[in-house]
């Protein structure tokens, strides 16, 4: 239970003027030792976004000089040649072009805060969404029975004490990535983190007080300690007007699920409640039908993804040094377009990593000029970078988790330099 105790010490004293029901007991103690605040402040935050459904990495970041790709995608291929309409690819480096609907990413890429890894994926060749997501989230691509998720193991490897908000998933139920022994919260909406009596807020306060007293007295230490943490956590959140949150810098988040999730992650970051690993999801990437080019389903998806992320990034401008954000998706899509204007399940895709300690402005990875010989099963972009090599590097350089054997058992491999050397 040492971690629970430590929360009381570390729990962000600056937040608490008055808590309801009196001053939280730990505040008095914490007030005597301001010193402990500084290491706490230094904590880094990793934000992960899972793009469920398998993003077409070849359309998000297109190797536009590749004639094989062009031939394989007669109606999906876009060119980087300027047409003056704003609908051509954004030329990143003479070889790769960013989808025009991700224009919001361009400045971050040019500022070298945004890195792209192309050809990333899992060594397990399954093309089932379920299995591939399961493997990527557990971080053990050949072990169905892996009990824990990689982010839960990451949390356990942080090596210091936790607050209740250390690991938060902005989803309605716990994602596979967070399965495991370390405490994590799954919550859709931060304002639900309170004692609630719908239509009867006054009674809710009375009930809260009653519960707080009861749990304080509980004979089970698990219930007692967790009860205490719960009420402390409520108090933390209630110091801020969660519902009427105003993002910084005039930022407006897209009103989508992802926008909402990132907005709340930004709030938690700013509240300084001890967040270290956050998780959110983005859906709709399974584009078998009519995925479109500069407009259409895929364009809408990447617009949302890039605008949500850039909104988040400018909202947390004062905290950017502490935050690294990484996207992931279970696999990529077929090189060849299918008969219904879409693409089917493939192998490698690409991902995005954003942060001030990221080795940005580069398309990392090792994808070759496409040809039948170097495609996986003769049809898909081959996986040339194991996802664990990238995930572990971000965890290592940003969160200082350097125990790869514990983070990704069964894996040994090299880092590819997506993060700056410190």
């Amino acid at each position, binding site marked *: 239970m040492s971690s629970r105790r430590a929360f009381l010490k570390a729990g962000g004293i600056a937040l608490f003027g008055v808590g309801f029901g009196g001053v939280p007991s730990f505040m008095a103690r914490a007030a005597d030792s301001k010193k402990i605040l500084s290491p706490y402040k230094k904590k880094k935050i990793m934000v992960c976004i899972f793009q469920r459904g398998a993003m077409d990495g070849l359309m998000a970041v297109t190797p536009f000089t590749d004639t094989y790709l062009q031939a394989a995608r007669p109606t999906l291929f876009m060119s980087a040649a300027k047409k003056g309409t704003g609908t051509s690819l954004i030329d990143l480096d003479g070889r790769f072009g960013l989808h025009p609907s991700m224009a919001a990413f361009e400045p971050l890429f040019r500022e070298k805060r945004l890195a792209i890894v192309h050809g990333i994926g899992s060594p397990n060749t399954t093309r089932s969404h379920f299995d591939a997501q399961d493997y990527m989230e557990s971080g053990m691509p050949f072990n169905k029975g892996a009990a824990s998720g990689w982010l839960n193991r990451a949390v356990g490897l942080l090596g210091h004490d936790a607050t209740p908000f250390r690991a938060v998933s902005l989803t309605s*139920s716990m994602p596979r990535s967070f399965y495991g022994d370390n405490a994590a919260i799954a919550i859709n909406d931060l304002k639900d983190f309170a004692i609630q009596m719908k239509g009867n807020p006054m009674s809710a306060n009375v009930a809260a007080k009653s519960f707080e007293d009861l749990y304080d007295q509980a004979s089970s230490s698990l219930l007692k300690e967790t009860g205490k943490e719960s009420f402390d956590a409520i108090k933390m959140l209630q110091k801020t007007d969660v519902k009427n949150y105003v993002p910084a810098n005039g930022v407006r988040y897209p009103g989508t699920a992802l926008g909402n999730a990132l907005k709340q992650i930004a709030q938690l970051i700013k509240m300084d409640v001890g967040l270290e690993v956050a998780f959110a999801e983005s859906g709709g990437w399974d584009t078998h*039908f009519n995925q479109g080019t500069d407009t259409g389903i895929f364009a809408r998806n990447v617009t949302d993804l890039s605008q949500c992320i850039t909104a988040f990034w400018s909202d947390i401008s004062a905290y950017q040094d502490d935050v690294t954000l990484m996207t992931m998706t279970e696999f990529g899509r077929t090189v060849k377009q299918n008969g219904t204007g879409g693409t089917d399940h493939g192998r490698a895709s690409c991902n995005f990593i954003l942060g001030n300690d990221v080795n940005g402005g580069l398309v990392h990875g090792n994808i070759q000029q496409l040809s039948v010989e170097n495609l996986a*099963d003769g049809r898909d972009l081959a996986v040339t970078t194991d996802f664990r090599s990238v995930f572990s590097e971000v965890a290592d350089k940003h969160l200082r988790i350097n125990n790869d054997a514990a983070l990704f058992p069964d894996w040994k491999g090299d880092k590819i330099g997506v993060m700056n050397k410190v």
Partner: protein
Amino acid sequence: MKKMFSRISGLVLISIGLVLLSSFFDAPPKAKSSFRMAYKQAGLTDRQAAAHLLSRFTYGATPGEVDAVVAQGLENWFTAQLTATNADDSLKQLLSSYDALNLTNPQIELIFPRGPAVLRAAIKDGVVDKDSVKTDRKEYREKIQAYMREKGFKPEQELVRQFINQKIIRAAYSENQLQEVMTEFWFNHFNVSFTKPDCARFIPNYERDAIRPNALGHFEDLLMSTAKSPAMLYYLDNFSSSGTNTNMEQQNNNRNGAFRKRFAANALNNDSALAKKGQNPKKGMGGLNENYAREVMELHTLGVDGGYTQSDVTQAAKILTGWTIYPMGNLYNNNAGARKALEQLGEEKMKERGFVHEGDFLFAVNRHDNSEKVVLGKKFPSGHGYDEGVTLLTMLAHHPSTANFICKKIAVRFVNDTPPQSLVDKMVKTFKDKNGDIKEVLITMVSAPEFWSKEALREKTKSPFELAISSVRSLNAQVNQPYQIFNWVNKMGQKMYYYQAPTGFPDRGQYWINTGALLNRMNFGLALASNRIPGVKFDLLALNQHHEPESAEAALKIYSALFMPERNTDETTKRLVPLLTDPNLQQKVDEAAGKTVTAQQGSADAMQEQDMTMAANTDAQQMKKIKAKAVAKNNTPAATDMATTGGNNKYTLSQVIGIIIGSPEYQRK
């Protein structure tokens, strides 16, 4: 079914100690039990023991149930539960409106086709143009919906909903509570998950046919029936696993070549979209898949430290190649061809060739690796088919490591999170002696003093599902919209039937209790008691013989005793009574809460439509108005305002009940 009945009747005979050659229909259990529960040795009274028994082997005692069990005799009650022979007429009545629950898997496949299958069919039938799919969302959706109505298709979510509802209803109302508890236990042990689309629509029948009938039977039967069930075959991918050795190729060539070709080409891809592209785009046949073979050892039988190696896993996987699903009728995928091929061959010929067809299960001999294998030191000679898989699973079911692993898990479920080895040892002995008979293992457990010890009583934390259902049972509530309960259980951290990993939900208090989940337990209590969970009805006064408690303090005492029989709730009462009777409580709390908090909470729920400025400038009078409105809206028997003990005490009976349900003591069992 016959097999199950004979097993059950067999047990009835044994445990009753009668040697009568009658079926169990003729011999309803007028149980005189042959075992003694060891609670007196542990210093418990009959009532205390009955309360403990009910807390562990049911989803919570209903009011008066403790007395009923004492009157019946604890051993007799348990014997009836073990045989699951209590008449359950009212449950049947409650379930009668769920029409999807009695379907076979092939029927389900036809009525609840998956989205992609519908889409392809719609394109094929020219209802939607493939170029318009998903480009015009609304029009496209409407067309698809009309098409589904015309074809008599229903969305899969409807099946899932009926299934989840039935589980909640069974847990709340079945007279055979232990059967439901064990069904949940074994489902979780042999976990499959709605998160995996391939297996989702087969999950209802997995529980109905593979788990529930065997929940109190022999472990071996559970293992065998789950191994052959479509849900498990899909969930752990064995359906696609096939051998690649030369023996098999030779066998293929020697046999009816044309059939082989056709059958293999169709390759049993029950859901074309995923399976075909999924496993191996080149061959269409899966190759060896070790997932099931690994988990059957690690999670279902031996346990991770059960003494097997990677080589055992691979060899076992080879033994199980060809264990797959009989292609089901569906016009819209590739099964039609495979099924036709089998039908043309005919059952007789299939048998001759070594195929096995049992319901949805198919042993496809042409996909089987019939080379020699060695698993756990046992040699499986070459040239065998279905039989060696049966031999393997039987061996695993009776392996000593399995006895240890399963008995420990049962003890964790029913005793505490770290059960004493002395108890586990006794259970293991019974498991081995009685051929893996679950009933006998449970009898051994309750016959041991450890089950009744201080270290066991109240030591388990209710899972969210157990909390929700025990509340319903405490309240004698009527649940008209069970899915609402499911939503709350999810909020409290247990999305039932959606646990993604084959491990199933961990069974320990620490897993269930974290800050977010705990708060939602409290909120659940408040919401339930104040009638804010739609479709859940109850009458609080009826529980107290229609007497209104004279004070909040009296209410607390009366209902604590009703909801938590034989528990010492003095501490709860002592702690709460001063609060309850403080005339200025409301004022104090509100002051302490501060204006921002109240305003924020208010705006979060009741006052959404109200002017925000008003909420921000909250003053006592305005809040009173809002509260009056809220109370008026909530004018139900549950919200009966109690006689106040003075001042402006705002405690209502429903609030007291909500606090009891959310209290730490009620989280334990």
